[in-house]
């Protein structure tokens, strides 16, 4: 059996045409509105979950004054931020400073255009969906770098530089981890990837999931890789000089990215909208929020790594493991295409444990001092 045959044979046959509810333009309008509302609502929910969840984990209450259980806290935050004065530094590059939040926000919306909320329910069922995500998600970095550069503030510039370095490095393990999934699914389309997950890929690709989760955390600046806005070091990083609505945009980007990457992880590894009993879109939401909660959890638990350690982790730990993972997956798909999934699950989990333990023996963080 040749490789193209193999890929074609693995393509799921049942793909609903993504043209509901009707014509091309109606479809476009409907999903655009849905996406924007989805992002805004999810961000509010995410902020609430993060603040309350962190409160619980830190033996305090969290915001509980606005509305029942503090549910209106995100609304109050948004209102406050909207009413704030918009301050632009004198020395700032005004155009870049103004444009940066938009450049950072749009890619996040674009990511969500190819994420299926249930079977066929997505703005554009691109046959290169995941490739599109990989391409588009890095554009947010340009926005953040514009913010850092345009503010003409040294803290901002340091944060922006760190962000670029982190994203450039972590794109590689991120993409390599995705390729493992794509090999298993035999398709780049997000909907097909979900349809092909009879068992979630978190079980078939445990190492890939681990790599993707860590790289995603670095990519969207969640702790322990939040060097871009390391509040104890460089104040607020690239958005130090932002206030008012433009700051709100960056705040939105931060959480929207977290939600978007949770959605990607859900789609790639947690079998997306599939699940028993509950309606598919609800499964999708639940899984996304669970992944987001894991991010909140790591944020409250772990200290931050240093920039050289961040780089070392990407290049010395994640990158080799991602290559090995890709290699193993490719062999498995080629040699035993019809093997029982559950045997593969056990083999892969054992492999993951062995590889991670082995590699952490090789991987030592340096002392990081430079002679001056």
């Amino acid at each position: 059996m040749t490789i193209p045959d193999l890929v074609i044979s693995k393509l799921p046959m049942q793909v609903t045409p993504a043209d509901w509810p009707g014509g091309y333009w109606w479809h476009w309008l409907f999903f655009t509105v849905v996406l924007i509302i989805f992002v805004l609502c999810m961000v509010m929910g995410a902020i609430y979950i993060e603040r309350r969840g962190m409160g619980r984990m830190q033996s305090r209450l969290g915001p509980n004054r606005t509305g029942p259980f503090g549910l209106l806290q995100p609304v109050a935050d948004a209102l406050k931020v909207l009413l704030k004065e918009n301050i632009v530094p004198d020395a700032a590059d005004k155009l870049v400073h103004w444009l940066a939040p938009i450049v950072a926000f749009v890619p996040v919306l674009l990511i969500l255009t190819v994420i299926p909320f249930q079977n066929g329910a997505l703005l554009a069922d691109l046959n290169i969906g995941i490739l599109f995500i990989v391409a588009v998600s890095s554009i947010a970095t340009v926005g953040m770098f514009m913010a850092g550069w345009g503010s003409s503030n040294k803290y901002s510039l340091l944060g922006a530089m760190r962000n670029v370095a982190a994203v450039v490095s972590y794109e590689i393990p991120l993409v390599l981890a995705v390729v493992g999934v794509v090999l298993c699914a035999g398709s780049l389309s997000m909907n097909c990837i979900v349809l092909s997950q009879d068992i979630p890929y978190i079980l078939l690709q445990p190492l890939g999931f681990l790599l993707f989760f860590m790289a995603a955390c670095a990519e969207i600046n969640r702790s322990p890789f939040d060097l871009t806005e390391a509040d104890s070091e460089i104040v607020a990083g690239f958005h130090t000089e932002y206030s008012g609505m433009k700051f709100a945009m960056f705040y939105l980007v931060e959480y929207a990215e977290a939600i978007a990457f949770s959605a990607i992880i859900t789609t790639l590894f947690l079998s997306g909208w599939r699940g028993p009993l509950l309606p598919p879109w609800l499964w999708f939401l639940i899984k996304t929020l669970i992944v987001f909660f894991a991010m909140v959890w790591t944020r409250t638990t772990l200290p931050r790594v240093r920039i050289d350690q961040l780089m070392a982790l990407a290049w010395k730990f994640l990158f080799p493991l991602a290559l090995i993972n890709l290699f193993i997956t490719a062999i498995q798909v080629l040699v035993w295409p019809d093997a029982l999934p559950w045997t593969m699950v056990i083999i892969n989990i054992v492999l993951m444990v062995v590889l991670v333990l082995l590699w952490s023996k090789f991987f030592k963080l340096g002392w990081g001092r430079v002679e001056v």
Partner: protein
Amino acid sequence: MTTTEMMTLKTEPFVLNFGPVHPSTHGVYRMRATLDGEVVLDIEPVFGYLHRGIEKLAEERTFSGFVPLTDRLDYISSMSNNLGYCLSVEKLAGIEVPERAEYIRVIMAELQRLVNHAIAVGTFLNDCGAYMTPVVYMLREREKILDLFDMVCGQRLTYNYMRIGGVSQDIPDEFLPALRRLVNQMFFFIEEMERLLKQNEILLARTKGVGILSRETAINCSISGPVARGSGVKWDLRRADPYSIYDRFDFDIPTAEVGDCYDRYRIRIEEMRQSLHIIEQAMKQIPSGPVRADVPHLIRPPVGEAYAHIEAPKGELGFYLVSDNSIAPYRCHVRPTSLINLTALREMVRGWKVADLIVIFGSIDICLGEVDR
């Protein structure tokens, strides 16, 4: 111009201003850091944003009237400041302190050490980037101790509890049982924190070997307290020059070898344990009796000078007083622990990254009220 020359970007060091308003300068400390990218080439500290002229104010007040102002020096550990100042006046005027008052003072000073180290470790981990979690847990424990302080003197931050020749009032009856409960809880709490943090991989990577202060430098810069002991200097005034009644207690002085940030953090945790042991012993031995010697309010010490120093939580805290037989000190000088410990900062941070600069700075544990006075 060759292609290589055109492609090579020119770089140069730049000056980044940390503070006085910055999340991690623990107040209004300011340092002008010269950076080469992320690497710290040099730092230049700038002091004085919190200068209130406390030493000068002492000359305008009576001896006993200066006690509340000592609260404002290192406001994290006011009790220790009270103690240091009162010891100095007592040395100057030759006042005997009743037995019970000595014990109460020791208990308060050691509780204060617990409070200070809890805050120091918590904020240090916050500087490492553990977003708020350890510091909130530490503050929770600190609150319990502050409740005890509240019980004895009605204050939670600036206690003004010690008086020349004793303490302002006796401890209430319910204090000792509450203290007993607290001590038992604290042992468990320290174990819990140890389990959470001692072996944390990221914490080890961030602090092990970072910001090493050699034993020689520590001695040459007259560093004291946990910072010096972290560098292997076995120097604790409670042992080296026992004041009050510290010679009656049995406790260890933890020291470490390497002198990095991790060692300083470990020393603080160990010292919290030792403080609890001292408190336990003091609770067993505490006698009954008066808590304040018969000292006139407007005390006129004989002409002369005195220097008394104590092992404050942050290190050696000294008060130097000169009397001209009037009701106010002729001159008062404070040996500020934080300021002197800060002098070694430049040696420690050079060559490390910006992130390490913050961590090393946090590991020294300073209080700006004391640095600028």
